[in-house]
C-alpha cells in the first residue's frame, strides 16, 4: 500500500469544531449534490481509502491498495467480448506495477494539471468555514 495526495473537488457544507476534536475526524460535511471527493482521475487497477482532508491546501490524503485480481484477455481473444476475458490473481510484480502507475500519474502532474485532466472545479468553501478551520488548527498548534 502507499499514500498519495490528490486535489479535492466538491462543495464544503459545514465545518464543526466539536466534531473535529475527535481523533480521526475532519469535522467537515459535504454537499450531497456536490460531495467532497478527490478529483476523478483514473488511478488504474487500485482501490483507495480516505485518510485525511486538508482544507488549507484542498488536498485529500488517500491510502492506495493494488487490486488482488486482474481482468485480462485470452490469447487471440477480443477484448470487448466477455467470453474472451477472464479474471485471475495478480502477481506481486503486477501489483507493484499498479501502485507505480497511480503514483506516477499523480506525482508527474501539477495540481492545476490534475484539475484540468479531471474537468472538475476546485473545492468550494466559504470564508466562514475557512476561518473556523484555521482558528481550530491554530489552537491545536499552540
Amino acid at each position, binding site marked *: 500500500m502507499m499514500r498519495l495526495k490528490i486535489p479535492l473537488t466538491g462543495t464544503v457544507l459545514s465545518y464543526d469544531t466539536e466534531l473535529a476534536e475527535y481523533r480521526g475526524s475532519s469535522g467537515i*460535511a459535504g454537499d450531497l449534490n456536490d460531495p467532497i471527493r478527490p478529483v476523478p482521475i483514473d488511478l488504474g487497477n487500485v482501490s483507495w481509502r480516505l485518510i485525511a482532508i486538508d482544507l488549507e491546501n484542498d488536498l485529500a490524503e488517500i491510502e492506495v491498495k493494488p487490486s488482488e485480481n486482474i481482468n485480462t484477455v485470452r490469447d487471440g481473444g477480443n477484448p470487448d467480448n466477455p467470453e474472451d476475458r477472464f479474471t485471475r490473481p495478480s502477481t506481486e510484480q503486477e501489483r507493484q506495477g499498479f501502485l507505480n502507475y497511480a503514483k506516477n500519474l499523480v506525482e508527474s502532474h501539477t495540481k492545476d494539471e490534475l484539475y484540468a485532466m479531471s474537468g472538475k472545479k476546485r473545492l468550494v468553501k466559504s470564508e466562514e468555514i475557512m476561518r473556523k478551520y484555521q482558528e481550530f488548527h491554530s489552537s491545536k498548534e499552540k
Partner: protein
Amino acid sequence: MSPVAQNGVDKQGVSINGVQVEQALNAANETVNKGVYAATTLSAVDADLTVGNIKDTVTIFGFLGTLAATISHDNQDSAVDTQGNNETQKIYCQTAGVGGNDDGVVLTLTLDCAQATVIEAAFFVSARCTVADALKLQMYIDGIAQGETTYIVLDDYHQFYDIGNKAVSSGNRVVYLNTHNYTGAGVAYWGTGGIFAGCPKLA
C-alpha cells in the same frame, strides 16, 4: 395411634380397615409421593411429553427428541431495518438488487442521528458491467467520499466491500454507494449488495 384423616384413611393412603387409596401423578409438578399408584403412562399424565418437544439427540423417559436447533436472526428479509435500544446506538441495513448505467447512486441509506455521533459504514456488492476497466464503486458518508473500489469486471460477478467512518452532527445523515465511469463510454452495470451502517454513541 396413627392420625386419622377424612373418610377414615390415614395419611399414607391406607384406610383404617385395610383398603388402599391410590395416589396420582400431577403434570403441574415433579413430586411423586410415597404410596400406591394405578398403572399409567407418563405421556398420559402430561401430554407435552412428546418427541417433538424434546431437543434432538436427547432422550427423556424413552422419548428420543426430534426438535431441531434453530438460529434466531436479528434481521431477516428486510430491505431496511434498524436495531438498537436507543437512538444513540443503532444499526441499519439496506439490501437491494441494483443496476444502472454509468455514474449513479445505486444504494442509499439515511440515518436519523439524534445526537452527534460517528457513523461506521460498510458495504458489500457483487457486480459486473459491460465495459472493461470502466466502472468503480464509491462510498460516501455525509457528503464526503470515503473510498473507491478497483474496477468492476466484465466477465463475471466480483465481490467488493469497503469500510469507512465519519463523525457527524445530529440530524439525517446519508450514506450512499455510487458507480463512477472512467471511460466515458456507455456502461451498463448489474449488482446486488447492501450497506450496513451504525451510529455508536460518541465517546
